[in-house]
């Protein structure tokens, strides 16, 4: 199996998610990324030369709503699942 995703790409993707992986994790992830992508490569066998580009798989379209205010969550409920909070704020690490 030729490698589709290099270790560097995995590291870069991890950085985009601000994840810091151990060497073992990088190795395992690289292997899994490649397995998943190889599996999806099976789709390459289908001839799509006559199929137009389509961004949506659902026949639904033109669904909008009116500009009418509805009740929001109460603040305690809104913050209920926050891992950390301070007063009425969500608290998060400082991001780079």
């Amino acid at each position, binding site marked *: 199996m030729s490698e589709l995703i290099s270790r560097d790409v995995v590291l870069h993707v991890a950085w985009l998610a601000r994840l810091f992986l151990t060497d073992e994790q990088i190795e395992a992830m690289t292997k899994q990324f490649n397995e998943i992508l190889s599996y999806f490569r099976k789709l390459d066998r289908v001839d799509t030369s006559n199929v137009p580009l389509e961004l*949506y798989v659902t026949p639904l379209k033109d669904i909008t709503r*009116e500009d*009418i205010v509805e009740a*929001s969550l109460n603040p305690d409920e809104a913050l209920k699942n926050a891992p950390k909070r301070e007063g009425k704020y969500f608290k998060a690490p400082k991001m780079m």
Partner: protein
Amino acid sequence: MINLSESELIIGLECHVQLSTLKTKLFCSCSADYRELEPNTVVCPTCLGLPGSLPVVNKEAINLGLKVAKALNCEISDKIIFFRKNYYYPDMPKNFQISQYDRVGGIPLGRDGYVNIKTDAGERTVRIRRIHLEEDPARIVYLGSISTSPYSLIDYNRAGVALLEIVTEPDLTSDEEAHIFLKKLRSIVEHLGVSDGGLQGSMRCDVNISLSGGKRVEIKNISSFKEVKKAIKYEFLRQKQLIKRGVIIEQETRHWDEVRKTTVSMRSKETEQDYRYFPEPDLVPIHISGEWINKILANLPELPEARKTRLMTQYGLPTHDAEVLTTSKALADFFEKAAELYKNYKNISNWLMGDVLRNLNELDIEISESKITPELLVSMLKLIDEGVISGKLGKIIIREVIQTGRDPRILVEEKKLIKISSEESLNLYITQVFQEYPGAVKDALKDEKAIHYLIGQVMKKTAGRADPDILNKLVRKKLAEISSSVQ
């Protein structure tokens, strides 16, 4: 104004205009009126990005976007498609922002438009590359400064509020031109009724700037149109200095530090492909029919250009006046309200364009932030017309009216600013001055200039309150008396 003699400056703008007249956010029914609220009080599962929630687009947001696209002469796409812009930062709780994209099958709401602006060098066309809808991120609060704060506090009230991103081609060549363009843009969106530029943070801007064909530097985080001019000026001088020293300008993103008024390198590591744009699967395409566009066109309100022409025909204003007044909706509204109360339209316009704007500039406020009203301005103009105060005094009290909103009639009485037109009182001052300046009196018998000097001295003594016509008459009369008694 930047001196362009040495370097060629090229500027493109990326403006973010909040659709602040909407009642709800772009993809959920939470109130979009988030200012001055307790943190996290207008949030719901959708704008908090909770699992299982689904966005549904606000139809009125599309209407407002189409209005702006039409007013900026854009081509309008036949459907609206949203994309996910993925990035990991807590200002978007979903880890992506729902936006629009112009590649891989995406199409922005509007494209290839233009705005004409009037500069000192004449009319210029600024091309609009694209206009698209996206959601505003949350507000992040740091303890102390961004660099020393140990963590961040997040208020999601703003997250999901509808923004219109408006991107120009790099057609601007000075800080002044950028400023004129932004003022025009603001006047247009305010006339359309889609945004109120007076609201804090409702109009923000990123600036792309390059010098002498060098690499493009992007300046982010400019939170008001006013600051844009300062940021451009600073960045221009910084790059010019570097080029002078032989340093090559690198392509980079810098951050505008509003407190220190400098730009700081941001070391952004994300590139366009890192955002991994893909079509938002939770939203469906919205088709824009010809019928929909026609409805928008039929309901398009009067725009600044049309209003300018109307001010000229309806009030007989010169082109220049009409142009200046329509650079701001608030200013044009002020003029028209005053014109309902007072029929010397040119006089209103002169005062607005002259002393009112000059004082607002000096105080660094907008007319909507000042205390002056059309009624108060008209009240002052009438005081002058009635001869109660001189025009010169009007120029002095207008600043106080702007700052306090107090009735000019009361101000005039309190300050005893009423014009002195009694011959008896004026003669007392004249006698005093003639005694103090015997030399000038002698000269004045044959020298016109010395007469003006004496009149000036009386004016000074009365703190500008003397009626100039009567004073002039009395001084000449007294000189004539002296002259005949000498002979």
